């Protein structure tokens, strides 16, 4: 199984393209993976890395292009096809049965498992592989007792035993402790030495340069470059990931000097939050938003953005520190109270987090308004409708049919309903998470105008985004979030994208300008 000559192209793609609705996830991707190399795939969120790896594993079928294995064209209709050809993948969420032992989990994965398995024979084969590649593990232990690092070993062993030659790993270091990362890289080294090809996706630049042989960078569905790790440095990689700064269209830029109220409208001081499960702990956050100010928060996904938004909203309690809003200590206020005091919340996923799909547009508009429209045991529907119509018009959105269930609206229209509702009562603070993600150019411009309008009326905006261009255009101040902590603070116009990119990826220690 390990007779692949090194440095020979093992897996190749030619002109792979895949489109999801308006999003061109992969656009003519030509990619080569050699035997005996560790290949890192870098890029922003939405750059197309996941799509490419899913295509290579047969999980997603490309619209166009071809895949060659050992120089021969192959059709990967399902992951089963990919596995049969020796391509295996380790997902971010492990595909393991917690209650079963390590041995049973590996057996389950084998397609050639006989009706009556021979546990001893399989165990011998696993132990031989484990020893060879430094993946030693207790085969009889139930998987739920294993650390994350050991579970990852099981995933890799599964693939090796199923005779995979190409191993694809989606952000394998994201969940690992530093010593586990070291161990994983040693495993990579051992595998590479025997001719296996390893492709892994990551956001962390430093580890890429340390452990990869070759680095391919994707941006907006295309490959922007492929370099030898020995010749790469962090700056060039960041430039490749985030691209050239495009010149701004005239008129879009806000005047630089804007009056900002002296006292902050919203402030977090030394705020930390408890964690459970896969959440990111927020550590000692200092965030303040002044009246009329847009504070941008940059960071790669999973740096604590969702947690920060939930902390501001009141969904997540503070473990330490204080939260003030409009001059009052609101550390223990309920969400309803925060909203009534003038907080608007625009989540990343309007349909999933801010709307009730089965309820009508009218009923959806009535939610979250506090006591504003209470009338007896019911609601003052007329007043609600006229306020909401005004809000739709102020945003120049068409008013959707109020009786239709929200589930029947298009994604963009659901977002419009949520935006109109959240902006209807002159919010004092708008917490917006990726508000323009997935929107076309014009809608995105409308949303940005809406956030600016909230500022012009004296509100504050906390804008959480991954789009550095957007943050550069919008933010009066920029905070960089990494692993739940603010690692950089910049006033408007005082940051270089490269520097922010370095901070976002944790490649550079925090500096406060």
């Amino acid at each position, binding site marked *: 199984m390990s007779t692949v000559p090194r440095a020979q192209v093992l897996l190749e793609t030619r002109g792979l393209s895949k489109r999801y609705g308006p999003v061109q996830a992969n656009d003519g991707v030509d990619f080569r993976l050699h035997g005996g190399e560790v290949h890192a795939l870098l890029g922003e969120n939405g750059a197309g890395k996941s799509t490419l790896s899913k295509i290579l594993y047969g999980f997603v079928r490309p619209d166009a292009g071809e895949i060659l294995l050992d120089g021969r064209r192959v059709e990967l209709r399902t992951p089963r096809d990919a596995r049969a050809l020796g391509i295996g993948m380790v997902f971010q969420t492990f595909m393991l049965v917690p209650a079963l032992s390590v041995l049973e989990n590996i057996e389950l994965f084998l397609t050639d498992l006989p009706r009556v398995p021979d546990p001893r024979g399989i165990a011998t084969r696993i132990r031989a592989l484990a020893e060879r590649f430094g993946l030693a593990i207790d085969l009889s232990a139930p998987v739920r007792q294993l650390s994350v690092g050991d579970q990852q070993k099981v995933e890799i062993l599964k693939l090796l035993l199923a005779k995979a030659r190409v191993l694809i790993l989606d952000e394998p270091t994201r969940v690992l402790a530093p010593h586990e990362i070291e161990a994983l890289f040693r495993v990579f080294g051992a595998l590479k030495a025997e001719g296996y090809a390893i492709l892994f996706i990551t956001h962390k630049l430093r580890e890429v340069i340390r452990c990869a042989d070759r680095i391919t960078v994707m941006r907006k569905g295309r490959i922007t470059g492929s370099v030898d790790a020995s010749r790469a440095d962090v700056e060039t990689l960041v430039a490749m990931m985030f691209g050239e700064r495009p010149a701004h269209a005239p008129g879009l830029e806000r005047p630089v000097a804007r009056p900002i109220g002296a006292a902050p409208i919203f402030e977090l001081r030394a705020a930390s939050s408890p964690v459970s499960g896969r959440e990111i702990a927020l550590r000692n956050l200092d965030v303040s938003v002044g009246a009329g100010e847009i504070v941008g928060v940059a960071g790669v996904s999973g740096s604590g953005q969702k947690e920060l938004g939930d902390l501001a*909203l009141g*969904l997540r309690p503070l473990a330490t520190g204080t939260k003030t809003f409009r001059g009052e200590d609101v550390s223990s206020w*309920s*969400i*309803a*109270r*925060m*909203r*009534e005091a003038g907080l608007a*919340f625009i*989540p990343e996923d309007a349909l*999933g*987090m*801010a*709307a*009730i*799909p*089965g*309820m009508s547009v009218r*009923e959806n508009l*009535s*939610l*979250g308004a*506090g006591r504003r429209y*209470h009338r007896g*045991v*019911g*609601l003052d529907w007329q007043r609600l409708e006229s306020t909401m119509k005004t809000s739709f018009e102020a945003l120049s959105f068409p008013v959707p049919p109020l009786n239709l269930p929200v589930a029947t609206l298009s994604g963009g229209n659901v977002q419009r309903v949520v935006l109109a509702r959240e902006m209807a009562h002159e919010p004092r603070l708008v917490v917006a998470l990726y508000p323009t993600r997935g929107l076309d150019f014009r809608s995105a411009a409308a949303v940005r105008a809406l956030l600016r309008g909230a500022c012009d009326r004296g509100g504050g905006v906390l804008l959480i985004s991954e789009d550095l261009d957007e943050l550069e255009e919008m933010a009066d101040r920029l905070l960089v979030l990494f692993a739940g902590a603010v690692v950089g603070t910049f006033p408007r116009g005082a940051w270089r994208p490269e520097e922010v990119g370095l901070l976002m990826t944790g490649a550079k220690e925090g500096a406060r300008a």
Partner: protein
Amino acid sequence: MPEAAVIATFRNSDAVRAAARFAGVSAVALLVFALVLLAAGKDPLSAYAQTFRHTLASSYGFSELLVRMTPLLLAAVAVALPSRLGLINVGGEGQLYMGAFAASAGVFLFPGAPAWLLLPLVVIGGFLGGAVWAAIPGALRAAKLVNETVATLLLNYVAPLIVGYFIFGPWRTTENSAYPESSPYPPAAMLPNLFGTRIHAGLLIALAALAVYWVLMEKTRWGIEMRAIGGNPEAARRLGIAVPVWIVAALAIGGGFAGLAGMGEAMGITGRLRQTLSPGYGFAGFLIAWLAGGRPLGILFMSFLFAIITAAGDTLQISQGLPYAVVNILLATILFVVLASRGGWGVSR
């Protein structure tokens, strides 16, 4: 063309669809059950005819249907209301017993009180008994400790034991009775009968409960909040809706209605507290609420249908010499037909 449009709207209207489904389900179930009767060597046509004569076609039979329907209606609302929040209440049976228990406790605490005091007391007691019993799983669920399905189901086994303790002990009748039951309630505690039949005021309470359920859910802002929780709990929380509070409240209100069903059986029919108060009304209520899809009119129809079916059991037993248990075959058939037409719980919900 306008006529066609009108017909199309009419055909698509909820009420018509529900009625059509009701008829379709009944027809298929009766057809399958006819095969069972044939297999048992009976003539299905004459069996159905006899059932019809003894239930719908006679005034006494019809009044008995309404008597049976009373607890079914309440038990169904007890399930339907929490289900709008995505909560599964399978504890109607236990809540029914605790309602009867609490109402009895009120009566035995003030045995000499006049009717104007006792009647409100038993109604309030009946509601509170079931409400408290259902609030326990509600609180456990709101605190994210125990799933409400499990807790309500398990409490079904506890409630009759509490009733049992009291009817074997402190409240046991002093009459020389081999049958474990409480002493009779004073006449002032009994719900008034209507139209000189066994139909009692509990029927009015049940119809009122159905109306309250509809108004609460469709016409009040609280109903919107509760439905929002059922529709998307994640969004509901972010919109500032007090999700844990509503979970407890909805289960308590539902449980209160089931408790009223128990009170109605005790104070309207048996006149004593017994451990055999309910032949499974709580569980039947669960089926009715699911079959009706939680719609008030559907609950009304389905409760009536279930009343006919249980009455048919008696008729078949007497006139055809079939065991009462054959109606379980009919019930199961209906359940399967409905589930098949919906694609099952796990799939459609």
